[in-house]
């Protein structure tokens, strides 16, 4: 740890400057730790605050999910058995596409105004910064899908137990989608036509999540129990939590060169 004596850097002959110099100095190790958590907390808070002030962005993702999944009953016709059979797959696919739709905003806005540069050269570990940004992104665009999915499921004549499994599987699955997607978003940062490229990169990686998620709901519908699918989803989430931020951080460094 390098801790040069920084106290003499502030100008003492200015009254307001000496008031400013009461900012917490980074002098000992425990303070460095709490600074890290404070910086990460502020980052999380900032992303949520920006999303709250630009509600249209998050709302667009939610409406895409609601409308695209509502098109299926309209197109296929109101046959309760058929709708019930396709519901898990349809809802999972539309949720997955909605997640992908929102990926573009994960780093692009920060890149456009130069704050991403500041994130990259901040003294906080980039892996944790990426993880916090991804969690905030999930809270903004993934969590609303989880909450509204049971309501959409009613359109498909899904019984209560299946609705619960659907919500639970999305709760485990959508964070994994955000994490895996963060790697694709970081890699395609600043690339022209990045949106299409993200789809090509990320959709194949989404396949396991889709298979386990939709599989869990279908299995519970046929009475086999959703445990296996949900366990696999949980495992996917754990693995992507551990590895995706490292890959995304490395990709960001390459994109920003």
């Amino acid at each position, binding site marked *: *740890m*390098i801790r*040069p004596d*920084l106290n*003499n*850097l*502030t*100008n003492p002959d*200015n009254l*307001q*400057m000496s*008031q*400013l110099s*009461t*900012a*917490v*100095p*980074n002098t000992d190790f425990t303070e*460095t730790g709490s*600074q890290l958590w*404070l*910086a990460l907390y*502020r*980052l999380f808070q*900032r992303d949520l*605050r*920006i999303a709250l*002030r*630009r509600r249209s962005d998050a709302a667009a993702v939610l409406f895409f999910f609601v409308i695209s999944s509502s098109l299926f009953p309209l197109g296929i016709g109101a046959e309760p058995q058929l709708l019930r059979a396709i519901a898990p797959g349809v809802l999972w696919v539309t949720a997955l596409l909605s997640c992908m739709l929102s990926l573009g905003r994960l780093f692009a806005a920060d890149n456009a*105004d*130069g*704050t991403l*540069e*500041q*994130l*990259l*050269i*901040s*003294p*906080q*570990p980039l892996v944790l910064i990426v993880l916090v940004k991804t969690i905030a992104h999930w809270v903004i665009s993934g969590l609303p899908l989880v909450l509204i999915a049971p309501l959409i499921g009613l359109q498909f004549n899904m019984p209560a137990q299946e609705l619960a499994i659907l919500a639970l599987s999305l709760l485990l699955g959508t964070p994994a989608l955000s994490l895996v997607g963060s790697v694709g978003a970081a890699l395609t940062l600043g690339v022209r036509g990045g949106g299409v490229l993200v789809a090509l990169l990320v959709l194949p990686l989404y396949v396991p999540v889709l298979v386990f998620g939709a599989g869990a709901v279908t299995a519970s519908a046929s009475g086999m129990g959703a445990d296996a699918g949900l366990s696999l989803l949980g495992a996917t989430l754990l693995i992507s939590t551990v590895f995706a931020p490292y890959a995304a951080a490395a990709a960001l460094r390459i994109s*920003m*060169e």
Partner: protein
Amino acid sequence: MGNMLEAINLQCTRGERLLFKDVSFALHGGDLLHLNGANGSGKTSLLRTLCGLSRLQGGSILWRGENIQDLREDYCAQVVYIGHQAGVKDDLTTTENLCFSSALAGVPISQDQANAALSMVGLEDYVDRPARALSQGQKRRVALARLWVSRSPLWILDEPFTALDKKASALLKERIESFLAGIGMVILTTHQEIDINARSIQHVRLDA
């Protein structure tokens, strides 16, 4: 006192073209390094390399005798970099912007401290306005307000005087001078004629 920052035989290529090579300098506390060169001579590339944004393509950069690639985050904590883009979020107020960038840099400040710093750069009437409503020059002032709360010993400033009016330029010049007087180090590029008083001023020309 040993060298705080030392650059040895730095080299940079953009695609096939060699931008510069064999750029060496050493900075001590209180030194100002003025980077000169025509457009496209690699000034920004050099600054980005110095703050660790771009990979080093040749040579080495030492901070207190240690390689900055080994120090990583510890080195980042010692540097303030203000680039072409202001790094100011349109949806946040000026105070929120400054509080966030300081917390990120590891120097958490209170709202009052942020407001005091903003009034130092002449933005006291804009403290609770969203940055969206600010002009280009005012956004730059928000970014530069970090210099009034920072505790880092090295500032790397890419064209800090661009888009600033006379009054703001004078304020910034004063701040840089007082920082240098307190053993700070500044590396900057500028096309404006600005004479900053410093104990020692080094000039590095990239297109020489």
